[in-house]
């Protein structure tokens, strides 16, 4: 039980993902399917971003102090190389930075995923529009029925 309490965010997100997946499987209407897919996608993004959160952390935008510390460390690293001493500057950098930043890597991956998701959604909606013009309906059961009838009548209908 304490496991669920530590991982409460994953539990809720799994419930949201399964709800979205259920809408995709159990709806006959094509636009409702696409809405369910969009809900499922957004829940998956929530899963990844909640894994990258660090307690007591900040958004991954460097503060002024960290930027100056980084510039100083880089300059001293360059001069250390010319003088032949290494490893001292990194030590100074790590001990100076006190701010904790949340993990930026999931943010990068999910940014890409969001934009690709809207691109595929647009293509899916265009296909639904063309299907509606060809069959007169967007319910799957009726499309199956029309296909069956047209196959019965032979090609060229």
């Amino acid at each position, binding site marked *: 039980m304490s496991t669920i309490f530590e991982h409460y965010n994953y539990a809720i997100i799994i419930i949201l993902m399964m709800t979205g997946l259920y809408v995709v499987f159990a709806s006959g*209407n094509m636009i409702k399917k696409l809405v369910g897919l969009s809900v499922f996608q957004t829940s998956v993004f929530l899963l990844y971003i909640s*894994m990258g959160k660090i*307690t007591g952390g900040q958004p991954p935008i460097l503060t002024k102090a960290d930027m100056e510390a980084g510039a100083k460390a880089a300059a001293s690293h360059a001069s250390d190389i010319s003088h032949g001493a290494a490893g001292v500057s990194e030590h100074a950098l790590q001990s100076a930075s006190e701010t*904790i930043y949340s993990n930026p890597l999931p*943010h990068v991956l999910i*940014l890409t995923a*969001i934009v690709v998701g809207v691109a595929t959604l647009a293509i899916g*909606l265009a296909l639904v529009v063309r299907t509606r013009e060809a069959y007169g309906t967007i319910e799957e059961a009726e499309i199956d029925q029309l296909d069956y009838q047209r196959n019965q009548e032979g090609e060229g209908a």
Partner: protein
Amino acid sequence: MFTPIFALEVGLMAMLVVVAIAVVRMRSLFAIVMLQGVYSLLSAIWFVVLDAVDVAFTEAAVGAGVSTVFMLGAMLLTDRDSKPISTQQKIVPLLIVVLAGAAMFYAIGYMPAFGDATAIVNSSVGAAYVEATKREMFLPNVVTAVLASYRGFDTFGETTVVFMAGLGILLLLGLNGHAGQWRAKPNGHNIGNTAPNAKRDDTQENSEGGSA
């Protein structure tokens, strides 16, 4: 443990679950599309609570903005309501979803604890990117530095995917809405028209060329 932030997170999670269940139960497509916009907006707020400001910006603009506009545009061209489905058709999807959910709940014990700084996912590559941006990139926004420079190939692929989506829409629907509705006669053969409400005059032999 029970800080105001925790209360905010619990409130957001509850609203998200309510909106998701409403999407399952409703039949009016207009309401479903609007609820999807509300879902995106609520998850954008949760992204801000989880310190993902870039992602929240993109999700609010894309999910609650243009995505809802596209769905409304598609809905204008199709139907307004969805038909109900019989109870018998709901059994197998429910079974699949319950089984998949149970499998994921079984795996929850192996996931890193929420907010853990020492988990492998947070302490190896992610922290290295923050350190590398401090030392060599001199840009405050770590996400932009990683997106455009360290992982620039992925962003190139993403830009190409957006371009291909635009191209696909041009082929399917046309910038002026005419794709699939024009007539053309290369080599004397009539290329058929796919839209059922277009004028079908196969016997006419004087339809010239095509207009894109």
